[in-house]
């Protein structure tokens, strides 16, 4: 049997698949969240670093870093589906991009919010115009712009395509965020975020952080699929399979 990559591109075929996947993703989210939080709170050292160590509050890392990663990955995923939609003209890809966007925006906000609470005890300020903070804020605005543009255009097809194009243009910000800590000369640009290196992080902290990241991934899958399910029903409301689904007895 030849594998047809477009088999699940049809909303009618994808809908039951989403139905079956959602409980699994929620279960995995629950398990991983519980494990990650337990490990983060009870199995990790009480402080981070040598002199001038960060005390208990460094544990924000278990939410902050995964949320910041998710904010960038979800934007890339959104752009991927938007580009697939523009190229292959598939309805489901636009819906996918649309379903991912709110989750991405929420993670961006979460990263900024937890960052503020982490910044207060460690840097002495809730907010600073550090390049990484600023570029993350810009990413948040780009998510908002995408959602606002999509909401403002009544014609569904035009809204999809216009928002997709905007998302692709906004992709320039992702590498900027990623490299925003590589400041060539510390006297020129003050970056409060240090360079990070995953191999230098203490094992337990790394484990908890990666578990939380996986939990956030599963959460993103679950919420995006749920939103996608609603979008499919909304947009395909006229299709016969939706009618049958809603009125199994055939009466209207």
């Amino acid at each position, binding site marked *: 049997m030849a594998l047809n990559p477009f088999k699940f591109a049809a909303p009618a075929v994808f809908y039951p698949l989403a139905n079956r996947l959602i409980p699994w993703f929620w279960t995995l989210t629950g398990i991983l969240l519980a494990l990650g939080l337990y490990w983060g709170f009870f199995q990790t050292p009480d402080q981070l670093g040598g002199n001038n160590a960060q005390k208990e509050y460094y544990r924000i890392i278990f939410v902050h870093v995964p949320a910041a990663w998710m904010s960038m990955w979800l934007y890339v995923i959104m752009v991927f589906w938007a580009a697939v939609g523009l190229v292959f003209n598939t309805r489901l890809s636009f819906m996918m991009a649309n379903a991912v966007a709110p989750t991405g925006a929420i993670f961006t906000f979460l990263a900024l919010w937890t960052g503020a609470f982490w910044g207060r005890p460690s840097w002495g300020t809730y907010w600073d115009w550090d390049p990484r903070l600023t570029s993350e804020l810009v990413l948040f605005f780009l998510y908002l712009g995408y959602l*606002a543009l999509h909401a*403002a255009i009544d014609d569904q097809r035009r809204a999809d395509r216009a928002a997709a*194009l905007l998302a692709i243009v*906004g992709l*320039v*910000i992702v590498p900027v965020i990623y490299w925003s800590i590589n400041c060539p000369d510390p006297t020129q640009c003050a970056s409060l975020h240090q360079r990070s290196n995953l191999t230098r992080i203490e094992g337990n902290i790394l484990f908890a952080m990666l578990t939380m990241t996986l939990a956030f991934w599963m959460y993103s899958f679950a919420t995006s699929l749920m939103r996608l399910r609603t979008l499919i029903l909304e947009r395909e409301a006229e299709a016969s399979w939706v009618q049958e689904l809603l009125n199994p007895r055939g009466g209207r």
Partner: protein
Amino acid sequence: MWSAFWCILQRDLRLGLRRRTEVLTALAFFMIVVSLFPLGIGTERQTLQILGPGVVWVAALLASMLALERLFAADYEDGTLEQLVLTPQPLSLLVLAKVAAHWLLTGLPLVLIAPLVGMQYHLTPTQIVIMMLALGLGTPVLGLIGSIGAALTLGVRGGGILLSLLILPLYIPVLVYGAGAIEVSRIASTDAQPYLLLLAAFLLTALTLAPLAGAAALKIALE
């Protein structure tokens, strides 16, 4: 192909010059915003010198954004835009022509009036020269990026306010390096060189990529 470019450029310039008030509004807006800041934050010489570069750029950003709404709107309403999309010439070239005309009408005046603003904020003569260079390199970038947003929001409800949400985040690099160039040239004008080179790099990137995106956006809007 280039004759089409010149044709659109001349047509837009002629149309713009016949409706002079529309062209001058952006300029007047720029001057008023710039003049309001000293009244709000105090007229101390040192404060103004520090704030000047940023204020000039923020005002230029807002003025260029206000003017953008009219970039395609008139042609969209009377159907000219559809004819432009149907022409055999590449649409991105025609978009480039429209943006060029738009910049000559709304961007270039800002560059030319910049020395006046510089004096309002007690900037040094070198800073004023650098400011004109930075504005000259930066304002076309604003127009080019803005044309994508203007095309995306054509005929959309609440287009103006939406345009600002879409476009202002993308303007940030120009603002940062444009204001930075003026700021660092207070000590030595050569310090501004990297900033100006970066602005030039933005301009080249925008020149090559923005018309393509703008043309795609126009096609989506007119489908």
